[in-house]
């Protein structure tokens, strides 16, 4: 594996791995469980101890430059907050589903149909991620026990996903003790939401017939992150040239263990399978 360094001018080069510089091994570190007092002045290239394969030869750097080992997943802080959210759900015996899809695939429609079918028996809370408007929250309010709306457009541009701190904030607006199930409607996007744990027990996604058979191969991170893949808008099948076998094969290629459910949130066709799966998750 080469070590690629990318520079501002766009050039990339790789270093070889000479390790002829001197080391000073005061601190023993186990790879993977690296804690350090940041006030300690670590020796130059002391991070070399963590994994000799990681570091290139930087011996030409100016004096005073120090390398500090970090070895932290960039989502570590988010994941800690996600774990706290999950603990709050568990304490209240609430099951949490994170529902993701591209814009317009039918997240709100599926939630509406779910609320209509289960809302009498199951106390359902909705966390609604929407960049600017309360429109979806208004659609869902009739059947839901509680709705917490998160408008993510407060910074510039708006968030393209929900993260664990945002969901923690949304949970302040829900009384979990009064709920059995929380459905999180993520921001419509097939990329970023797949990266952020929010404290859910299970991730589900919708792909709709109008999106094309190639989407599992174009967004494998999303398709691989979920336990359930709903294929929505099956009522449109007679009007489209969708190769269902190819779509299912592409899903199976990137996520062979996913449960695939074909349905139409509009007509209700296939909803039973989805509702049965939800009830099983609630009982688990």
């Amino acid at each position, binding site marked *: 594996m080469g070590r690629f360094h*990318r520079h501002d001018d766009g050039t990339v080069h790789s270093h070889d791995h000479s390790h002829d510089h001197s080391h000073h091994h005061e601190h023993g570190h186990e790879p993977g469980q690296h804690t350090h007092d940041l006030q300690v002045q670590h020796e130059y290239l002391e991070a070399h101890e963590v994994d000799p394969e*990681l570091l290139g030869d*930087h011996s030409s750097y100016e004096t005073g430059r120090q390398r*500090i080992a970090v070895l932290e997943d*960039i989502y570590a*802080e988010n994941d800690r907050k996600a774990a706290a959210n999950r603990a709050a759900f568990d304490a209240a015996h609430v099951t949490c589903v994170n529902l993701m899809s591209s814009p317009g695939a039918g997240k709100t429609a599926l939630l509406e149909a779910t609320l209509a079918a289960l809302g009498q028996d199951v106390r359902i809370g909705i966390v609604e991620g929407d960049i600017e408007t309360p429109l979806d929250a208004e659609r869902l309010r009739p059947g839901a026990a509680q709705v917490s709306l998160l408008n993510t457009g407060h910074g*510039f541009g708006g968030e393209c996903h929900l993260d664990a701190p945002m969901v923690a904030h949304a949970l302040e607006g829900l009384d979990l003790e009064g709920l059995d199930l929380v459905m999180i409607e993520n921001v419509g996007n097939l990329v970023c939401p797949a990266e952020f744990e929010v404290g859910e027990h299970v991730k589900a996604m919708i792909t709709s017939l109008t999106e094309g058979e190639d989407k599992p191969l174009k967004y*494998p*991170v999303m398709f691989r992150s979920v336990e359930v893949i709903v294929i929505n808008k099956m009522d449109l099948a007679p009007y489209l040239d969708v190769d269902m076998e190819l779509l299912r094969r592409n899903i199976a290629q990137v996520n062979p263990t996913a449960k695939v459910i074909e349905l139409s949130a509009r007509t209700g066709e296939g909803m039973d399978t989805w509702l049965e799966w939800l009830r099983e998750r609630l009982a688990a």
Partner: protein
Amino acid sequence: MGGISPPLPAALGSFGLTWALTAARVAAVHELSIARQLAGVVSRAASGRRVLAVQVRVGHLRQVVPDSLASAWSFTVSGTALEGAELELEEVAVLLACRACGTTAAPPAPLVFDCAVCGSSDTSVAAGEELAVVSIDVG
């Protein structure tokens, strides 16, 4: 990222905002959210010291476009204490561990998760999902 030349002005005027919207919504929405997570990790690790470079390990399954991440990083740290810190990417190729035959090998083709040795689909990803700050250079 043609036509975009970071670093950008820290105070977003209408031009800056337009750029931000373009970058966020079209070109680098994924990389921008990654850059912001990265900046958080680096800031905490640096404890106020000047950061010269950041070594990041990126697995090939994370769908990161290196040029987009470089631009998103420049944009994210512009006008902050991390401005000027260089991002150095270490790419990690995909390896699949096969439960059927016990071997760990590269996939037979990109986005194929079957074992290249025995063809079983009972595999797990042994490498290629990394997205971590390995170390930082301060000075």
